[in-house]
C-alpha cells in the first residue's frame, strides 16, 4: 500500500472491504437471482397446471374438489401458488421501481404490492387446505369429541 493513507484505520481496511456495498447493486442481486430461481421452478409447474386446468376448474364442484383432494394435486397447487405469487411480487416490484418516479409514491406502491400479494397468496393456500381438511372433516372430529367426558364438563 502507498504511504498516502496517514490514518491507521484506513490502511487496515482492504480494497475489497472498501469496495463492498458501494456499487449500484446492494441487495439487488438476491432479488434478481430469486426471480430466476422461481422462474425455473415455475416452468414445469405452469405446464403441469395448464395440463390440469380443465380438471381443476371442472364444471361440477364435486369433480373439482375430487381433483384438488388428491394429495399431490394439492401440493402442486400450493407450490404453484407460493412460487407464482413470489415471482409476481418480484416482477411487480421492478415495474414499480422503473415507472413510478416520485419517491413517496414508489415506497407506498412497493409496500402495497407486498401486502397485496402476501395476503392473496395466503388466502389461496388456505383455500386449498380448507378444501382438503375443511369443515366436513372438522365436524366429523367434533362428533367424535362428544364421546370424551371432558367436553361435557
Amino acid at each position, binding site marked *: 500500500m502507498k504511504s498516502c493513507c496517514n490514518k491507521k484505520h484506513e490502511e487496515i481496511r482492504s480494497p475489497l472491504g472498501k469496495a463492498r456495498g458501494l456499487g449500484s447493486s446492494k441487495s439487488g442481486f438476491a432479488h434478481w437471482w430469486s426471480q430466476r430461481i422461481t*422462474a425455473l421452478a415455475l416452468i414445469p409447474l405452469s405446464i403441469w397446471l*395448464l395440463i390440469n386446468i380443465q380438471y*381443476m*376448474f371442472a364444471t361440477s364442484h364435486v369433480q373439482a374438489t375430487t381433483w384438488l383432494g388428491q394429495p399431490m394435486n394439492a401440493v402442486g397447487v400450493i407450490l404453484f401458488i407460493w412460487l407464482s405469487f413470489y415471482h*409476481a411480487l418480484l416482477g411487480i416490484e421492478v415495474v414499480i421501481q422503473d415507472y413510478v418516479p416520485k419517491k413517496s409514491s414508489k415506497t407506498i406502491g412497493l409496500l402495497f404490492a407486498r401486502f397485496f400479494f402476501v395476503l392473496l397468496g395466503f388466502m389461496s393456500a388456505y*383455500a386449498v387446505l380448507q378444501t382438503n381438511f375443511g369443515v366436513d372433516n372438522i365436524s366429523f372430529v367434533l362428533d367424535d369429541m362428544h364421546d370424551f367426558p371432558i367436553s361435557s364438563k
Partner: protein
Amino acid sequence: MRERPLSPHLQIYKPQITSILSILHRATGVALATGLTILCWGLWAMSKGASSYECFQWFIHSPIGILMLLGWAWALCYHLLNGIRHLFWDMGYGFNMTVVNASGWVVIVFSFLLAGFFILPVIF
C-alpha cells in the same frame, strides 16, 4: 436550470420484434400477476362449497370470463416461452441476432398453439 436534453423514448423508435417482445413480456407479466386474483377467487369459491363455486363457474363461462381465460392462457404461454428465452440469455446463450429473431418467432407461434391446445378443452 436549463432544460436538459431527453433521450429518445419508445414512440421514437421503429417497432422491432426484439422491442415488441420485450414490452409484451412485461405486459403479460403484469396481466398474469393481476390474473392471480381470479385464481385465488376460484380456489376460495371451491373451498366455500357448491353454490359459491357455481357463481365462479358462471363468471368463467360468461363472455367476459371466456375472454379473460383465453387472454390468461395466451399470456401464461407467452410469458413461459419468452421466459425460457430470457433464461438462456441469462446463461449467455442466443445473443446472435439471427438466433434472437428466430427464437422470437418461435415464441410467438408456439404461444398461440400452446394456449389453444390447453384452454380450448376448458371452454368447450
